[in-house]
C-alpha cells in the first residue's frame, strides 16, 4: 500500500536518508529496524510529511503523498504515533483522544473509535479525566496509541513503542497491536528492539546510516547472519 522509491532526505547539509526504497503491504505488521540514529524516525517523518524529501517518491495506493502537508497526509489515513509519545501532557486523556480525532476522516467514526480504544485499554476510560502527563510510562504509551487509533488510520506507524517500558508491558502492547492489525489496520513498527519486532512482523526493513541494509521476510531475517551479528550480538 505504501511505497518509498529512492527517497533522499537532508537536514541542511547532512544527508539522513540515501536512496531509500521499500514497500509495506496492506494488512501486515511490518517492522522498520535499525540502531540509534540509523534514520528510522527520519524515514517515517518523511512519510508523515513532517520532513520534506529532496528527491524520490512516496506513494500510498499509487497516489503521491510526498508533496502533501502533514494534515493532508493524515486525511489520507497515515497516522504516526511519535517517538517519546508526545502527548498533550496538560490535557486529560479524553481531550488527547478528541484531538486524535481532529481530522475530517476521523470525526465521522468518533464514537465507534472511542469505544474501540476504551475496550482495548479499559484503564484509559477509568482515568479519562486525568492529565496525560501524570500517567505512568505504559499508560502514556497506551494514550499515544489510542490517540493514533482515534484518527481512523489505514496505516498506523508506531515509533519506538518499547522505549522506556518494562518488557512485560511491551509484550502486552505487542499483543494489543495484533488485535489492532486484526481489525484491518496496517501497522509499521519502528524499533531498535529487533527480536521482539521480528517476532510479530511479517516483513522487516533494516536501516544502517540512512540506507536500507537488509529487508525481507521477518522469519528469514531472524536467521540472517549479518543481522545476528549486528543486532543480536550472536
Amino acid at each position, binding site marked *: 500500500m505504501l511505497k518509498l522509491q529512492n527517497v533522499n532526505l537532508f537536514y541542511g547539509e547532512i544527508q539522513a536518508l540515501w536512496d531509500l526504497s521499500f514497500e509495506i503491504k496492506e494488512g501486515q505488521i511490518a517492522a522498520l529496524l535499525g540502531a540509534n540514529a540509523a534514520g528510522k524516525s527520519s524515514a517515517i517523518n518523511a512519510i*508523515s*510529511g*513532517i520532513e520534506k524529501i529532496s528527491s524520490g517518491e512516496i506513494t500510498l495506493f499509487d497516489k503521491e503523498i510526498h508533496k502533501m*502537508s*502533514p*494534515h493532508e497526509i*493524515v*486525511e489520507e489515513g497515515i*497516522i*504516526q*504515533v*511519535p517517538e517519546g509519545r*508526545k*502527548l*498533550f*501532557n*496538560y*490535557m486529560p486523556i479524553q*481531550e488527547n483522544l*478528541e*484531538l*486524535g480525532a*481532529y*481530522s475530517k*476522516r*476521523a470525526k465521522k467514526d468518533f464514537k465507534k473509535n472511542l469505544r474501540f480504544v476504551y475496550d482495548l485499554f479499559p484503564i484509559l476510560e477509568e482515568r479519562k479525566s486525568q492529565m496525560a502527563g501524570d500517567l505512568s510510562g505504559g499508560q502514556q504509551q497506551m494514550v499515544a496509541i489510542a*490517540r493514533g487509533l482515534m*484518527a481512523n488510520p489505514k496505516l498506523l506507524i508506531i515509533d519506538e513503542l518499547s522505549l522506556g517500558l518494562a518488557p512485560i508491558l511491551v509484550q502486552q502492547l505487542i499483543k494489543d497491536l495484533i488485535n489492532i492489525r486484526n481489525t484491518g489496520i496496517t501497522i509499521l513498527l519502528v524499533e531498535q528492539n529487533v527480536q521482539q519486532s521480528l517476532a510479530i512482523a511479517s516483513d522487516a526493513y533494516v536501516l544502517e546510516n540512512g540506507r536500507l541494509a537488509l529487508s525481507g521476510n521477518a522469519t528469514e531475517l531472524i536467521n540472517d547472519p549479518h543481522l545476528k551479528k549486528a543486532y543480536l550480538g550472536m
Partner: protein
Amino acid sequence: MTIVQTLISGILLGGIYSLISMGLNLILGVVRIVNFAHGELLMIAMYISFLFYTTMGLDPYVSAILVIICLFLLGVLTQRFMIQPILDTPASTKIFATLGLSIALQNLALMTLSANHLSVKTSYQTSVINIGELAVSIPRLVAFGAAVGVAVVLYLFLQKTLTGKAIRAVAMQKQAAFLMGINVKRIYLLAFGIGSGLVGLAGALLMPIYSVYPTIGASFILIAFVVVVLGGMGSMFGAFFGGLIIGLVEALSGVIFDPGLKEAIYFVIFIMVLLVRPSGIFSLGKGAEEVGLK
C-alpha cells in the same frame, strides 16, 4: 477615600491592559513570536475607531465590533505575509521583523496622520456612577466589564471547543498537533487574528478615555511585556490578572510616588519577577514550551 477611588480606577483601566496582554501572550504561546508591533496594532485600532467616529459618526462602542474584525484581519494578514515566511528562521530574525514592523508603522502614522493627538467626544466621557462616596468613571467601568466578559469567552473557547483545544495543542506539543492532522498554519493565522482582535477591542474601549497619536503603542507595549512576564509566558490567566495588577500598580505609584515614575516602577517589577520567579507568578513553574496555553 481618594486612594480607594484611585485604586478602583486603576483596576478598571487594568482590564484594558489585560486584553492587550492576553493578545500578546496568545501570539507568543501559539506562534512563538514576540510581536513587538503589538502596540502599533493598538494604535491602528484606535485610529480606525476614530475614523468610524469622524466619518460615520459611530460611537466607539458601536463600532467596536467593526474594529475587532478589522484588527482580526490585519493580524491574519500579518501572520500570513510577514511571519509565516520567516517561521523557520532564527529567533533574532523574527525579533527584527516585528520590531521593524513596529517602527515602520509608527513612522507611517507620523507621516500620514501627523503627530497630533486625536480624540472623540462622547456624552458619557466624563460620566460617573456614584457608589457611596466613590465616583466610578463610566467608560472605565465599561472597559473593565467588556474585558472580563471577553476574557471569560476566550477562556471557554480555548477550553471547551475543538478549535480552542487545537490551538492549545499546537502551543503545547506542535509535532503531535501536526501528526493528529491539525492544520498548524491555519491555527497560527487564527491565533494571530484573535490576538490582534483583542487589541482591536482594547483600542475601541480606550478611545473614549485616551486620545490617539502615532507613538501611543510604545507605552502600551511596555505594559504588555511587563504583564506577560508577571503572569507567565503563555498563561492567559496570568495575563488577565497581571493586567489588573499593573493597572493597580500604576494607580498606586501615581499616588505614592509620582505619575511620571510609573514606567520606572514597571521596570522594577519586570526585573524583580525575572530574578525571583522567571516563569511568572501564575505559571505552574514551567515555561510555555511545556505548558502551552493555560
